[in-house]
């Protein structure tokens, strides 16, 4: 199995190098791979269909350029189309002519609205606004307390006249919240609402009532980047139920490919305004379509790397590096130089995602931030020139010296060196496959694997099945008012068989 689209395409188009034009058969083969890659990235099926048709249309008869191989060429088209859809009509927050501007948050349970309210407030403050948060999630236990705390962390006021946990009328609270903002001259009101399901008519009605009571300038639909195919039904339900003017993607700090971004954008037409990517209130940014596109593709976008790289280092150096990558002669010195150059080019995570072979290092890459980069730099700087040129000589005692000198743990030096060797090997293989450099170009590239769990994770002893387990039956004990199977006659046993009456299982019917 190939992890990324570029892997897939490279393999699908392996026989193509040197042909002048993409044939229909090539395009079909390619289209299949793109389809699977997009599905794996959680792009919704109907959106995948439409998108693939679009790509086919564009790829038809397109010249194979001298500089790019067919796989790269297709990747380029796919990437451009994705950016086009994701970024079409990006815009800023709509502010009211007469303050306060009212922003209402809406979304499924657990999508991250309350945390987002805090982030938005902090961000708005940094833009010179004085926002007021309104606690209108009176449903989820202690959502009000949570909003009060994040408000405090963000340094903004929170209007929370009702305790929540089922007590209080969210419509009334929202209305009074806006009045409060008007009276006390807050210029933006952010209304946090309870999470609700698209199919919950009663709760959707409540959202509409809140909307009608506060007449928001923006309704932001908050959606978890990990969501799968349900993105379509849910965003349609919210669009048709309460309506929304913009989208916020949350939990982008994970490794979900975030195909939902494409689905929601394509299905509802609403622009994605913000991206939330961490638990700290500062982990929040305006949405960047290009980053999202390369993330959805999950590809080591050599093409883009080279394009951008050429701007940052001079062409000659790039060539040298490429040759070194291809021949496996890359040194830690080059590695450091590259990192520094890459840093000039922009947010590190974005670029690392483009490195060939990145798929195999994804977990590690997800951890890399600029601070870590500083540490890496410190470690490499702590090496002698000979060590940098030939990292193979870095033995245990040298590692200890380097660690001492650069103020890190030996394990960090170990990790860097190991990671470097892996990266070098992988880059060499990739380079061969992409037809430059002098690499052997082998395909099998799942070389690493063990590295991932190298550090710090506690050894989890294997579970030994016990003879006398305390077992709650899968059929759960009885005596419950609703829906629970009655197995009370068995509850004296320590462990019960997992049987139960399926008719008791309440799946909602639509």
């Amino acid at each position, binding site marked *: 199995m190939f992890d990324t689209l570029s892997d897939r395409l490279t393999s699908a188009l392996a026989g193509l190098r040197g042909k002048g034009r993409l044939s229909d058969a090539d395009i079909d083969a390619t289209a299949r791979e793109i389809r699977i890659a997009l*599905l*794996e990235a*959680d792009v919704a*099926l*109907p959106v995948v*269909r439409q998108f693939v048709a679009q790509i086919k249309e564009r790829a038809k008869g397109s010249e194979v350029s001298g500089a790019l191989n067919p796989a790269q060429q297709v990747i380029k088209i796919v990437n451009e189309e994705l950016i086009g859809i994701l970024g079409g009509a990006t815009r800023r927050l709509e502010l009211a002519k007469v303050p306060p501007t009212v922003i209402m948050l809406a979304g*499924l*349970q*657990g999508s*991250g609205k309350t945390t987002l309210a805090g982030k938005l407030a902090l961000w708005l403050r940094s833009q010179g606004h004085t926002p007021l948060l309104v606690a209108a999630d009176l449903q989820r*236990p*202690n959502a009000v307390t*949570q909003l009060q*705390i994040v408000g405090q*962390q963000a340094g903004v006021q929170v209007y929370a006249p009702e305790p929540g*946990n089922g007590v209080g009328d969210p419509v009334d609270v929202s209305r009074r919240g806006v009045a409060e903002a008007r009276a006390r001259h807050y210029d933006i009101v952010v209304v946090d609402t309870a999470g609700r*399901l698209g*199919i919950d008519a009663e709760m959707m009605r409540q959202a509409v009532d809140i909307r009608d009571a506060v007449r928001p300038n923006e309704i932001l639909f908050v959606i*978890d980047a*990990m969501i*799968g*195919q*349900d993105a379509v*039904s*849910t965003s*349609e*339900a919210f669009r048709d139920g309460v309506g929304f003017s913009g989208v916020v993607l949350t*939990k982008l*700090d*994970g*490794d*979900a*490919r975030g195909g939902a971004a494409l689905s929601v954008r*394509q*299905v509802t037409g609403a622009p994605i305004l913000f991206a939330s990517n961490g*638990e700290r209130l500062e982990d929040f940014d305006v949405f960047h379509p290009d980053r999202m596109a390369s993330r959805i593709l999950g590809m080591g976008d050599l093409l883009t790397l080279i394009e951008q790289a050429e701007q940052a280092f001079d062409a000659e150096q790039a060539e040298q590096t490429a040759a070194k990558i291809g021949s496996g002669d890359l040194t830690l010195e080059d590695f450091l130089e590259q990192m520094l150059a890459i840093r000039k080019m922009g947010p590190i995570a974005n670029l690392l995602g483009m490195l060939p072979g990145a798929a195999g290092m994804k977990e590690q890459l997800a951890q890399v931030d600029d601070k870590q980069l500083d540490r890496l730099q410190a470690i490499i700087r702590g090496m002698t020139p000979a060590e940098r040129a030939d990292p193979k000589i870095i033995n245990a005692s040298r590692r200890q010296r380097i660690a001492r000198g650069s103020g890190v743990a030996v394990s960090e030096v170990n990790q860097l060196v190991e990671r470097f060797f892996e990266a070098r090997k992988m880059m060499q293989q990739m380079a061969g496959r992409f037809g430059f450099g002098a690499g052997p170009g082998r395909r099998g590239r799942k070389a690493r694997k063990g590295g991932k769990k190298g550090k*710090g*994770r*506690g050894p*989890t002893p*294997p*579970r030994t099945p*016990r003879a006398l*387990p305390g*077992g*709650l*039956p*899968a059929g*759960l*004990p009885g005596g*419950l008012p609703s829906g629970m199977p009655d197995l009370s006659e068995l509850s004296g046993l*320590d*462990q019960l068989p*997992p049987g*139960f009456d399926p008719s008791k*299982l309440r*799946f*909602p*019917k*639509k």
Partner: protein
Amino acid sequence: MRLRGRLAKSRSAFGQSLLGLLGAGDLDEDSWTDVEDTLLLADLGAATTTEIVDRLRAELAARAVRTAEQARAALRDVLIEALRPELDRAVRALPHNGADGVSVPGVVLIAGVNGTGKTTTTGKLARVLVADGRRVLLGAADTFRAAAVEQLSTWGERAGAEVVRGAEGADPASVAFDAVKRGSVDGVDTVLIDTAGRLHTKTGLMDELGKVKRVISKQTEVDEVLLVLDATTGQNGIMQARVFREVVDITGIVLTKLDGTAKGGIVFHVQRELGVPVKLVGLGEGVDDLAPFEPAAFVDALLD
């Protein structure tokens, strides 16, 4: 809208239209597409879908299927089979004799990424046990998220279970340890430990979770480690499950939010790859909205 029309078709096609049969043992192309769409839209993922379709193909041929009814039944069977109905789905939450022969409470650790429903599941599970006459203690080991402890306390009140909480920002492992200790001393039946939501990609937070389990294990074995997966989660669900398994050796999955439109099909892949069964499902925000996982009912909802 064109897209919408298509989607509506693919969602319902399977439920309504008859499967078109070419002759004994095979379907026409549209029907195969319908089957595939149904599975993809339920988040089974491309690879699992292909596998199921292949198995269905073999099954249709073997059974020499002649009617649409039979074809549908075959698909249902293949899906149920893929969910491995034979797996032991018992939740190990009851007291048992420890190494020294003294009875110790059942200890359940609840983990998962942010917002999946861990605290709610902890509360519901407590309720099930309390309703069965058990004494339950909750450990508030989410010391990170704002108001998480209060949220669990509210659930404790609803369920009739006491809560052990640490000082603000306390080390979650020590809160968990204290909860288990108190549970043992007080002779409760079950200790449920609610942990903070954490993305599986955050090594530091995953290490912290590993430590929670390790520290509890110094006292008594953790009987059950439940990974709470949100049914709306797409293909990332498998990544989550892999890492949580590696760090805390999960013994069961709780699939929440099945009361929405999401089908939760990622559990096919999760169960097959990890061999860890789905044990419970969450069907709403209410205290009683928890049920055992039952493959046949799950498949029926998926094909619905």
